[in-house]
């Protein structure tokens, strides 16, 4: 089988499986809205303060929502044994893993982007910062999926991997958060924000090229257990 058709098949299969388990797609989205709603209730509903904290709140909520969905990324395949077959298949594992991460991003990160305008409105994010917000999330959320998949691959065989997964992945996500919210904060202050977005792009290129190998290595270790 050609590499490209294997990739397409993998994407199709995972998308189909994702739509069969709709609750798993919808839950992170609700979680995203809920977490962001807690901040006005917990800090203050005042417009000025909200505009100030909105970039960070939206970014942190997105990060946590992606985190929440990671636990299931390889779990079903591990439980029903199809992960073993993927590892044994003649198609390189890092390639298949890249397809899986792409689907994960499509059903979490990309869907979150659709909710961002609503949240930006509710949190009074200045209009000048809307495009930077979307651009930073567009570059940043695939990275969250890629980095998170490394942690998910390493912990998939463990019974109580959930908290451990956050412990492994959150520190690695911090640079993404810093550059992502940094770009939006700069935009709200009418400062140039291209540098932060370019840094995110650099990290994304690095992540796409290197992370699949780490994910594949992690899966091999978890499967051989």
């Amino acid at each position, binding site marked *: 089988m050609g590499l490209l058709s294997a990739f397409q098949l993998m994407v199709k299969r995972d998308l189909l499986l994702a739509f069969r388990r709709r609750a798993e797609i919808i839950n992170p989205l609700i979680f995203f809205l809920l977490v962001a709603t807690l901040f006005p209730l917990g800090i203050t509903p005042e417009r000025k303060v909200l505009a100030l904290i909105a970039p960070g709140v939206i970014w942190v909520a997105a990060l946590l929502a992606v985190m929440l969905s990671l636990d299931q990324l390889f779990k079903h395949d591990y439980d029903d044994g199809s992960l073993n077959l993927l590892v044994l298949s003649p198609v390189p594992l890092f390639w298949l893993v890249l397809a899986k991460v792409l689907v994960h991003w499509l059903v979490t990160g990309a869907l979150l982007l659709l909710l961002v305008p609503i949240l930006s409105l509710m949190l009074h994010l200045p209009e000048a910062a809307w495009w930077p917000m979307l651009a930073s999330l567009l570059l940043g959320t695939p990275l969250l999926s890629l980095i998170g998949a*490394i942690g998910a691959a*390493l*912990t998939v*065989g*463990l019974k*109580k*991997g959930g908290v*451990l997964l956050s*412990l*492994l992945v*959150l*520190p*690695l996500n*911090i*640079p993404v958060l810093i550059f992502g919210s940094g770009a939006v904060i700069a935009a709200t202050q009418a400062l140039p924000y291209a540098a932060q977005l370019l840094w995110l792009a650099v990290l994304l290129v690095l992540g796409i090229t290197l992370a699949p190998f*780490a994910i594949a*290595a*992690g899966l091999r*270790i*978890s499967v*051989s*257990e």
Partner: protein
Amino acid sequence: MNWTWFHRLGSPKWFFEQSSKWLPWLAWASIGLLVTGVVWGLAFAPPDYLQGNSYRIIFIHVPSAFLAQACYVTMAIAGAVGLIWKMKLADMAAKCCAPIGASFTILALLTGAIWGKPTWGTWWEWDARLTSMLILLFLYLGFIALENAIDNVQTAAKACAVLALVGLVNIPIIKYSVEWWNTLHQPATLKLTEKPSMAPEMLIPLLVCIAGFYCFFLVVFLYRLRNEILWRERRTQWVRLWMKRFQ
């Protein structure tokens, strides 16, 4: 190329026997260097023209920050060696590095906070160098947690090695954070490629302290590693014979 010498180096038995010869030398060297460096630094080095006596904490702070990073790199290299050549000793070395590195990171953060209060007027600031050191601590804790979560020793070692290698991206961020971002933390005091900006009366005791910290790290590391070797090889003949001497 013939790799047998490399694999002999990785034999736990050979290493255990050899390291007992190195340990006393290293222990005396670390005591000697640390006492000399600390006494010299704290009592005899001149006070700083700007910071007075409070700068003296660098004799603890700088070496521990050095070691915190060096320890992580050592851990990642040992993990890579374990993954590639499947050497048991390298797996054990990576595992033994983690708690020591975490301790040095905590020491660096604490001494930094103690120095920061009189100098910057704050215990903690969300500055690039400080934050990246805190991330380093989290990386160490994640490594230790993963090691503890997986029961199978070999699987744990492999998984941890992958994690350590992934976390390696943080090291250049810490290293260059003071140059890339103009924040509160001052630029690096010591550089290999440039002439040091410090006066020699302060620089020499600092270098002695760093050497002492490195020796101290090696002593603690070897003790942990030897302990780990004895535990993992407890069913072999040579460990049983060795243990008999103490009964």
